[in-house]
């Protein structure tokens, strides 16, 4: 059986739409505690926070990066920093052992991540959108 060009195009379109829907469903976002007054971040500052180069918020609180352990969140960190995750881990270890910043915290468990955010007012967490809580604010990223 030979498929026509239109059929192939239509099938490809369906696959892409379906794939897009999956990505959207599993989309990861950056959140802060609602008491933190950050209104927005640009992509350069966000990459700087992920790499440990931007260490403080405007109000002086240290920026503490936390993230959940799912694949989509890790992809999101890689995409925002343009650095492979293995290399990011090296960078975070360097920050910790030169005293120049904090190692980003990776959480397997949501409740531990939420507790970390409540204890650290400067925490910025990368989590799946489906896990955003009432007391969190999604940070808009300007590009």
């Amino acid at each position: 059986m030979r498929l026509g060009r239109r059929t192939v195009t239509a099938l490809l379109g369906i696959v892409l739409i379906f794939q897009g829907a999956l990505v959207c469903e599993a989309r990861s976002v950056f959140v802060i505690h609602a008491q933190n007054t950050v209104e927005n971040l640009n992509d350069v500052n966000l990459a700087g926070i992920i790499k440990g180069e931007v260490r403080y918020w405007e109000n002086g609180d240290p920026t503490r990066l936390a993230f959940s352990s799912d694949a989509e969140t890790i992809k999101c960190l890689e995409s925002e920093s343009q650095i492979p995750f293995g290399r990011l881990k090296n960078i975070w270890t360097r920050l910790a052992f030169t005293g120049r910043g904090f190692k980003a915290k990776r959480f397997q468990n949501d409740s531990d991540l939420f507790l970390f955010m409540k204890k650290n007012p400067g925490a910025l967490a990368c989590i799946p959108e489906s896990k955003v809580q009432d007391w969190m604010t999604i940070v808009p990223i300007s590009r």
Partner: protein
Amino acid sequence: MDFQTSANKFAILRRWLVALILALAVTPCLWAIDLKPTFRGFVSGGILLQDGEQGLNEGEQHVELFEAALNASIFPFDKTLISGQVFVFHLGDDDDIDPKLDYLYLDHEVTQEFGLRAGRIRRKEGFFLETIDIDATRTFIRLPAGVYVLDLRDINTSIDGFSVYGTVDTENWGSFSYDLYGGDIDFDDQDVFDAISTIAFQSFEGTFTNPAIGLDTIYGGQLRWYSNFGLTLAYSYARYNDFSIRGDMSLAEGLPVQDYYSESSLSWHVLSSEYVMDDWVFRAEYLAGRSSDGRVFLDGVPPNSSGFGDSTNLDGWYVSAERFISDKLSIGTYYTEYYADSSDRDGSELVEDRLVSNMHNFRNLALGFSYQWRESTLLKMEAHWQQKLRIVGDSRNTLTERFPSSRVYDTTLGLAFKVTLSF
């Protein structure tokens, strides 16, 4: 070579106990005033295996390696950080595991573009000097020795002084960061002399006792450019003013002991580049060093008669590629070369005219694997092929006389394994 040992195990134990008591006393106080310190640390053990009689430690088939560090950080005020780390390093049969204060500083960031740091701070040089002894920050166990010399870590990693730093973001041109520093170095004279003699002398049949190391000042800095497309470029500079070595030297067994003094100023330049492309990271770095205003004084010997006090240029470089196959596994390779005298790359002048340096001329090819077994456990394995210049013939290398000899290249194959636990 006979050295006076400074290792006093009781003094070391006493220092550890005092540090522990202080830490135990201070920690609850910090918690009480809501300055909760963050602690981090690692313990790392490994082994280096070599195939021949020549290598890192001549005549040894394996060298054990142990490292441990503990650090603490607090934020006492807005945008202000106090951070400190104690580090222990042990290589081979050396029983001296004297802990060292790696850094302890106060850091205040006025703005992202300008910050100040004062105390004992670690220098930035190239991509890795700041973390030369922390292999958890990279795929490789041993850094390319053409640019990073592990034996010099006690001399060139930390300074007592200050630094200013900052990062400037641009709209279309990525960001620039700078770090400028100045100060001096708190030497442990014996440790520094041991490191220098390991590097400087391939064979020396005399004695050198009561070493005293001096340094007037050290200053320098680093400028980095982070592009928007994965490329990072950096230039680092360091200047050691009036670096001196004094001691009692006997040129050979049975000869009288004489006062020895040498002094020179050293300048280091490192050019660095890194390119990140998907899962790949490519790097190249080049080191150029120059000693100038050198002087050597030895009782009864005219200054600079050996040529040791002349200005010399050293250089080294490496290229590397790393691939992060998954978030747990990475693989990397590098090739590096080093020349103690860049005007004599094949060592021909050295045979007739120079003291024989243990690191005069070498090349090294490495292949390494790094696997994160659990969040806190890192496993590493690395293979090395190394060629190093050695002078054979009459091995008496003295400051005053020259002896006929010839040069050969020793080839060494090595394997290294390492486990690091961190928290």
